[in-house]
């Protein structure tokens, strides 16, 4: 189905988060890097939602706390100190990170604030050991141009990245605190984006300008998007954590579709005559006895564990729970998300998909009778501990009430396919209060002058210059500017006598195609990439060896390119070794030489090269082969 986005009033705002490439973290002197080894130590904490003056506690946060969620943090001494552990007050704000943010602000014409105030934004999911994220507004306003359309920016913030979630199981969440405290720039656009493809283009354009500063980190997870999406009559939905720029378009498309379908369902419910009061006072009913003999494995397992089965009638919802909202997501899926979050059950079953899952038509009939379901009603069942079942079905009922109204306001998270799932109700205005441990920083005119005088070029200028200075064709120049390697390309092209086109092709097409083959090219460090071109410049490595060396380095991220050559047997052969190989080849093919004389050069060259490819320079092979053939021919004559 083709959606007319203008007609449905689609409005999208983007929040782009990008890690900055600084020498140390935002509030301490730890290096901004992650560790792959086992943690050196762990510690256990609980976060308690703090109470505001208003006596309000974020309901979802309170719920998580009451569930008794404990948090296990993993750490090592190389990547974190007492600051990340919330055992020592933060140091002053990292000046280098602030400069990068100000630089970006000046590049997009935003107005830096006169004085930066660090705030604490309450986050109690455990991703911050403090229970809040430190964040500050660095500049307001600004704009970017995307295909002739101006998109306004609302604000540019500098904040600390959160800990990485490693696992969650049975009320215990594991986070690794290495990432905590890495500086992040957050760029927020006004909700002016009108289509999925425009959202993708805006995300790319912001990414390009960020990279143009030359001071951003690269690799998986170093750039993340949050999206705010609404359509007319729908609701503002916040979607967190879109890691791939290319997924932005899909997420917007599916979300617009989801909201549209939810509005249609609301309309349909109203036309079926459903009133809000019809959903009042509906109670979950224990129906465990109906399934004593069931063949449904899911239900049997729960009953065996002494669990119960509860059912809830949803009047006039028949056929709607199974209706698809976007690929693979139905209204039933939305209800299941809620049941899982609030009830901790594994999922729900509903009459739109039954009989099925080995539940028989007779069982469905008995179920409908038990809850007095009329034709056109739907029935939802859940299995598990009785209290959990009741909580889950209460959440399902709440979702049903919202279905009658249209689109509920929520925070969602992106799935890898671009669809989204419920994570929590949309929090009220972010609870923020001043971070009193960090002094405010005045932004002086002098500092801005210094930054203005050293502004990096904008991507378009850079494109022209790359084509001219490095003789790249336009396609390749665009690719390198769109890549995460713009700064590295220029550094290598300037410092080494290696063809800039080779460098650019390697850093774009070669890496991309390896990545498509599943090679973790994001693990290859800048130093290793520099070394590869250094070896080529020295004549110690053939350019044909590049893909193999990169693949090996991705598997051995702590090794050097020279080690890769050695391990792969791709070290260049010495002249003596080469001569020996060629001599042997000639003797092997002495018959050919006798038959064809000097014209045997072509086939012999091919046979030698297939043995030494990547380990010898073809020009050198050619030269040696010519000499040795003529010597051998003389010998034959003599």
């Amino acid at each position, binding site marked *: 189905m083709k959606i007319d986005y203008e007609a449905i009033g689609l409005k999208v705002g983007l929040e782009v988060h990008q890690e900055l490439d600084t020498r140390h973290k935002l509030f301490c002197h730890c290096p901004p890097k992650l560790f792959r080894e086992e943690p050196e130590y762990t*510690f*256990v*904490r*609980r*976060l*308690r*939602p*703090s*109470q*505001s*003056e*208003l*006596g309000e*506690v974020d309901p979802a946060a309170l719920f998580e706390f009451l569930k008794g969620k404990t948090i296990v943090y993993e750490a090592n001494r190389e990547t974190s100190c*007492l600051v990340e*552990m*919330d*055992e*020592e*007050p933060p140091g002053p704000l990292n000046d280098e990170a602030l400069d990068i943010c100000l630089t970006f602000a000046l590049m997009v014409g935003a*107005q830096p*604030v*006169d*004085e*930066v*105030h660090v*705030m*604490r*934004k*309450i986050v*109690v999911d455990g991703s911050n*050991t*403090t*229970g*809040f994220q430190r*964040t*500050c*507004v660095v500049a*307001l306003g600004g704009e970017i141009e995307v295909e002739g359309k101006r998109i306004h920016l*609302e*604000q540019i*913030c500098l904040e600390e990245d959160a800990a990485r979630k490693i696992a969650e199981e049975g009320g215990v969440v594991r986070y690794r605190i290495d990432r905590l405290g890495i500086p992040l720039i957050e760029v927020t656009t006004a909700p002016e984006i009108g289509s999925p493809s425009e959202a993708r283009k805006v995300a790319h354009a912001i990414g390009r300008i960020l990279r143009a500063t030359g001071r951003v980190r690269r690799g998986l997870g170093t750039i993340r998007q949050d999206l705010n999406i609404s359509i007319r009559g729908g609701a503002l939905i916040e979607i967190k954590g879109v890691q791939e720029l290319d997924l932005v378009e899909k997420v917007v498309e599916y979300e617009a579709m989801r909201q549209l379908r939810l509005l249609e369902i609301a309309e349909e419910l109203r036309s079926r005559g459903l009133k809000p009061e019809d959903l009042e006072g509906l109670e979950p009913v224990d129906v465990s006895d109906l399934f004593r003999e069931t063949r449904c494995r899911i239900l049997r397992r729960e009953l065996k564990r002494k669990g119960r089965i509860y059912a809830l009638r949803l009047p006039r919802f028949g056929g709607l729970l199974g209706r698809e909202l976007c690929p693979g997501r139905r209204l039933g899926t939305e209800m299941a998300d809620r049941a899982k979050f609030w009830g901790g059950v594994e999922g729900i079953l509903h009459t739109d998909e039954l009989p099925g899952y080995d539940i028989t038509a007779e069982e469905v009939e008995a179920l409908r009778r038990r809850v007095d379901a009329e034709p056109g009603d739907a029935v939802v069942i859940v299995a598990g501990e009785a209290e959990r079942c009741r909580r889950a079905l209460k959440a399902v009922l709440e979702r049903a009430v919202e279905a009658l109204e249209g689109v509920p306001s929520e925070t969602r998270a992106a799935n890898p396919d671009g669809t989204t799932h419920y994570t929590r109700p949309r929090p009220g*205005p*972010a*609870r*923020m*209060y*001043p971070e*009193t441990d960090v*002094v*405010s920083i*005045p932004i002086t005119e002098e500092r801005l002058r210094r930054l203005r005088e050293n502004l990096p070029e904008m991507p378009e200028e850079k494109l022209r210059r790359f084509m001219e200075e490095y003789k790249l064709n336009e396609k390749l120049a665009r690719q390198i500017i769109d890549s995460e390697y713009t700064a590295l390309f220029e550094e290598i092209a300037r410092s080494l006598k290696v063809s800039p086109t080779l460098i650019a092709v390697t850093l774009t097409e070669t890496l991309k195609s390896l990545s498509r083959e599943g090679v973790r090219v994001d693990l290859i460090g800048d130093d290793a990439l520099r070394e590869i071109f250094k070896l080529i410049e020295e004549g110690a490595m053939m350019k044909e060896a590049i893909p193999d060396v990169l693949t090996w380095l991705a598997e051995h991220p702590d090794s050097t390119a020279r080690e890769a050559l050695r391990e792969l047997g791709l070290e260049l052969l010495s002249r003596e070794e080469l001569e020996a190989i060629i001599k042997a080849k000639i003797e092997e093919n002495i018959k050919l030489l006798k038959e064809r004389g000097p014209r045997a050069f072509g086939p012999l060259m091919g046979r030698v090269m297939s043995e030494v490819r990547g380990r010898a320079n073809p020009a050198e092979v050619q030269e040696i082969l010519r000499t040795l053939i003529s010597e051998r021919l003389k010998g034959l004559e003599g």
Partner: protein
Amino acid sequence: MPNLQGYRGPLRELLERSGVDVGDLIRVEKGGRIYEGYLMPRLETADEWHLVLKLRSGYNIGVAYEPSMRVTRLGAAVKPEFRPPPLPEQRSGLPKVSIISTGGTIASRVDYITGGVHAAISSRDLLSIVPELADIALVEADILYSLFSENIEAQHWSGMARKVAEKIKSGAEGVVITHGTDTMGYSAAALSFALRNLPVPVIFVGSQRSSDRPSSDAATNLIGAVTAAAYAPFAEVVVAMHETTSDTSIALHRGTKVRKCHTSSRYAFRSVNARPIARVVKGRVEMIAEDYRPRGDGELELQDRFDERVALIKFHPGFNPSLIEWLVDEGYRGIILEGTGLGHVSSKCYGPLRRAVKEGLIVGMTSQCLWGRVNMNVYTTGRELQQIGVEPLGDMLPETALVKLMWALGVSSSREEALELMRRNIAGEYSDRTLYEEVRP
């Protein structure tokens, strides 16, 4: 008088002229730029050239003053109102625990507009913020002082001791004292000496992370303290704080053996030359010490006088011995030396020390090593110091020795009586044996 907390100079004048107060929704125009938000108070220690604005997004920014700047009031301040959540029901039949607050913000609420943190110390507030307490004990809370830890003096130790006595008399089965952490060790030592023949546990508790933040250790420490006050089998003065960086265990340190050993961490409090007496894990008190004073029903005896004319002096290379002379001239009655190693000071100090002893001062020796005990028989210096009349104080902590000497002089009628008290183990300040302990960070 407008409320313009922290604003000074021309900026304050401008704000006054514009008729705005802190908390008001205002518009600021300068040089073609317009900002809208709530006017926030300015930190007294910050410069006078920026006004602080809370934007609608919740972020604060500073806007620099300019003579041409215009400020307009768009709306009045909204006074935050505290609507406490319903109180948990107090179960009957639970032990009665009294909570005495002396300062610190172990229980507090944050004002999300100004960022101000307000202490919440009534029983109601405590229960609404840490509802778990209602399941542990029948708690009753009192405010005795609202003091920063560094402003606590000997008179406050006496006040605390008397308040504890009053609470025990009226039936408390355990007492919790909330206290700023910096000098909590001194207060715990003071009460260990002042409360003689103690029948119930007295638990000092504080927090290293203020309770306005979700990661605060305040609630866990308080829950541990109340659990110990209600159920611990011992009747001693202890400090209840995190045992490690995890929220899983609260250590109970004997008041005479505890010291704050880290500036900021949750696990800052350590028992020195001793193990903690017990810990609270999963809501239960687990005893570690075998030797402790059990709960009893004896009569509490209050010995709450302290003599503040005692000094704690740390010896160091280049130490000027006339400091000792000065103390004698000033009428001091006792000196605790923090000597080097086994308990030494330079021979330059001999003369002044001789004079101090001759004039009736009690001079005690502790070690700046903290771990281990002084021994003044090993080297000549130690033997000479003993000859002069310097009293070796075993493995007593320097701070505990200071407090004990203040107490001994306060409650004795003669130097000899005070000296005898100093030598006697009153509240576990001496241990006979030094055990091997792996040093933890």
